[in-house]
């Protein structure tokens, strides 16, 4: 085992610790199932085992005690209850700290060690009895579960010279008897030669002994100290047969009940960079394929055309599969919130349960990483401001225990993540009053509910009456919105006063490819994300006068403000004879973008622009067209901001853009 395996150990341990946390939280809520206890035990056991391989004695020693307690829970000699689960959670945290310390390269932190000892004392005090037996049975090998009397399987083959060296095999077996009870003994006589070859001074015997003993493996091995050189010795712990059967049965149950568990074991770890490289290459393959298709069409050979089409279909399939490689289930991310909800709810003295739905919904790994922070914020908000205190809930005739619900599902090419609570809901009037006070909207303006609720995503907006240390400092919702927008997602909010609030985050499935709508302005091509496009209409001649001030059209009775991409981007090409409006909907607003040509739908592999263009607004990236030319992808959100800014300079009222 080399140190290069250490990062794997750390990653695996963290994963196991997460599993352990989830299971412990389950137990704490009083749903102690055999599967949960098993999974906690397995986690502790595996961590202990692997840290033994790396010689991380601190982790082995600590985890061992935890494991022993767990083993008793598993054997039903100790009852799992809330207090025990709470202590075990703390122990889990301590193991995590120990693992983190190893990751940081400082495994001998004295403070940590003292803290660990305190924890163990509490644990053994709670579990009772095991303390004295455990502390000195720190196992030397990872596979030794030790609880009370253990069954040991000892296989000893004495070498032929033993008798000549003055040793009596029987004396060792007699000595073993002082260490515990010999349950079974079998002589191994395979090595006995035929009578004519038999040497009376030679030893041909071996023994298989089953020993019930509370001694450690070391002590048992030490019994054979004097014949160490003259025998082949194997000592291994043996689970009692009944327990083995039970364990097997449990495993079968687990397999049946959770197919996802078994799929875990068939998965393999791949370096994320390798995947990115593969997806990059496939992106190029798609582009190259498109070029070939165009060339083939020009060549006009029907056979060539056919084969390129077949190729294109295959490439598309390969791309879809490759993108799926990056997809991971959101479940583990959701489960992490169990802990946050528990801790935060305790801190502020509310009773809150977290419900999770759609755990098997898959989305891009990078998305999951980037969405954790905004989600944390939303969950904390729900606990802190959403759910009322127990008294208020009782007075309102609600269940005292509040519910926060995390949900995820796929919806027309995007992923929706919901954070819902059954708390007090948003008070519309207060939001509107506050917005008027802050000058965000004009007094007396009429807003729809969704427009009013959207106000809380404005920077510096917070209606919390109390500022707690968790949230409510007025930063937050705007940051959530910004983060989500940066991922090309949107946030919306539903709320009913007295019934609760639901925040809905809509995200693209992947960051690597978008469905786009290709438009042309002069010689330039632009891609508009397809999900934002509502329709395309021709720009009537009456709106085409270049000096005309009117920047809106009548779209079936509604006012549709528009911008000319050519002016917006100061493109040098001259206006074309025909122009069209692409109607897009973004952030609850509808605007038109005037372009020369509508070139149709396409799948665009997003190529990030150089850092040189990091401050650019209105453009989110680039993509390569089938012709090898580059097209720019519009970032509609920032484009809209850009319009608003220029419009405001024009003293045009901002509200004019809301439909």
């Amino acid at each position, binding site marked *: 085992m080399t140190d290069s395996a250490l990062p794997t150990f750390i990653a695996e341990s963290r994963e196991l610790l997460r599993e352990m946390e989830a299971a412990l939280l389950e137990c704490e809520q009083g749903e102690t199932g055999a599967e949960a206890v098993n999974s906690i035990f397995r986690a502790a056991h595996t961590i202990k085992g692997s840290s033994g391989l790396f010689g991380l004695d601190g982790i082995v020693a600590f985890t061992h005690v935890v494991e022993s307690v767990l083993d008793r829970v598993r054997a039903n000699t100790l009852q799992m209850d809330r207090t025990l689960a709470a202590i075990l959670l703390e122990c889990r945290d301590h193991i995590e700290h120990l693992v983190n310390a190893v990751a940081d390269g400082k495994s001998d932190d004295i403070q940590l060690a003292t803290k660990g000892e305190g924890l163990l004392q509490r644990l053994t005090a709670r579990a009772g009895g095991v303390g004295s037996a455990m502390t000195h049975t720190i196992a030397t090998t990872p596979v030794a579960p030790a609880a009370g009397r253990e069954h040991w399987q000892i296989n000893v083959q004495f070498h032929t010279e033993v008798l000549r060296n003055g040793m009596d095999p029987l004396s060792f077996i007699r000595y073993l008897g002082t260490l515990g009870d010999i349950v079974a003994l079998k002589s191994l006589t395979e090595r006995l030669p035929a009578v004519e070859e038999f040497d009376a001074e030679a030893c041909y015997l071996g023994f298989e002994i089953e020993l019930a003993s509370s001694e450690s493996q070391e002590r048992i091995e030490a019994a054979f100290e004097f014949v160490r050189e003259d025998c082949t010795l194997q000592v291994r712990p043996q689970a009692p047969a009944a327990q083995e059967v039970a364990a097997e049965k449990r495993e079968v149950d687990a397999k049946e009940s959770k197919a996802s568990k078994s799929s875990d074991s068939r998965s393999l770890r791949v370096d994320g960079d390798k995947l990115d490289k593969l997806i990059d290459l496939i992106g190029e393959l798609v582009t190259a394929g498109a070029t070939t298709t165009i060339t083939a069409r020009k060549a006009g050979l029907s056979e060539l055309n056919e084969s390129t089409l077949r190729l294109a279909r295959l490439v598309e399939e390969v791309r879809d599969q490759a993108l799926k490689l990056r997809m991971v289930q959101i479940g583990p991310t959701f489960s992490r919130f169990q802990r946050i909800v528990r801790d935060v709810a305790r801190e502020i003295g509310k009773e809150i349960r977290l419900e999770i739905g759609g755990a098997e919904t898959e989305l891009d790994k990078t998305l999951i990483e980037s969405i954790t922070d905004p989600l944390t914020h939303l969950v904390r908000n729900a606990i802190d401001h959403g759910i009322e205190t127990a008294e208020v809930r009782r007075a309102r005739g609600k269940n005292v225990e509040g519910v926060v619900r995390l949900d995820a599902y796929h919806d027309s090419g995007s992923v929706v993540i919901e954070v819902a609570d059954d708390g007090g809901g948003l008070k519309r009037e207060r939001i509107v009053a506050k917005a008027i006070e802050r000058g965000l909207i004009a007094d007396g303006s009429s807003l729809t509910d969704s427009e009013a609720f959207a106000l809380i995503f404005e920077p510096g907006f917070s209606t919390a009456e109390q500022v707690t240390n968790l949230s409510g400092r007025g930063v937050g919702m705007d940051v959530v919105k910004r983060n989500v927008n940066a991922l090309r997602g949107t946030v919306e909010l539903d709320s009913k006063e007295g019934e609760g609030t639901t925040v809905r985050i809509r995200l693209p499935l992947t960051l690597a490819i978008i469905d786009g709508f290709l438009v042309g302005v002069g010689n330039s091509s632009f891609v508009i994300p397809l999900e934002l496009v509502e329709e395309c209409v021709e720009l009537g001649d009456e709106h085409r006068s270049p000096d005309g001030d009117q920047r809106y059209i009548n779209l079936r009775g509604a006012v549709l403000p528009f911008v000319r991409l050519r002016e917006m981007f100061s493109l040098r090409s001259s206006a074309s004879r025909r122009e069209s409006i692409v109607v897009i909907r973004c952030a609850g607003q509808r605007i038109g973008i005037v372009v020369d040509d509508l070139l149709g739908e396409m799948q665009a592999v997003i190529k990030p*622009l150089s850092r040189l263009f990091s401050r650019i607004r209105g453009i989110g990236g680039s993509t390569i067209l089938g012709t090898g030319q580059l*097209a720019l992808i519009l970032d509609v959100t920032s484009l809209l901001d850009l319009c608003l800014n220029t419009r405001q300079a024009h003293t045009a009222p901002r509200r004019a853009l809301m439909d």
Partner: protein
Amino acid sequence: MNKTAETIEDAERRHDQNQYLTFVLGRETFALGILSIKEILEYSPPTEIPMMPAFIRGVVNLRGAAVPVVDLCARFGRPSAAVTKKTCIVIVETRVEDESHVIGVVVDAVNEVLEIPGSEIEPAPSFGASIRADFIEGMGKVRGKFVMILDVDRVLCVEEMEMLTQAAASADVVQPAA
């Protein structure tokens, strides 16, 4: 086996350090160290990026990557030359801290690859040159004439250009669209 390969590579590197690519901008000859040059492309019009300062011509597709193209004339504050048959895009790699950036530069014509030994390179004059003094790494003597050896990390300093692009972009926003 590996070791010899490395030493050969080192030797090549040492040799390459004195190699320069000379090219023409307007009526002057410039040189760039060959180690920073990745390749030379035939000129194809880059995709224009809106709201960029004049020295950024746009982006080109370099085997699937969008590479920004800088007009060196404009970067030096001169009018850009017209595109001719000889116009090229030289693909250059620069380093800022540990990040490497690939940037294309438009030049009027590419001349040759030369060896200019260190003894033939004079320090840059503090004034009197036609471009900013900190852009010049040194003055190389080639056949009795001076060529300006450019300091590629300065000329194509991503941080500086990023700031300039931002200034250009926000200037556009303030101007009310006519």
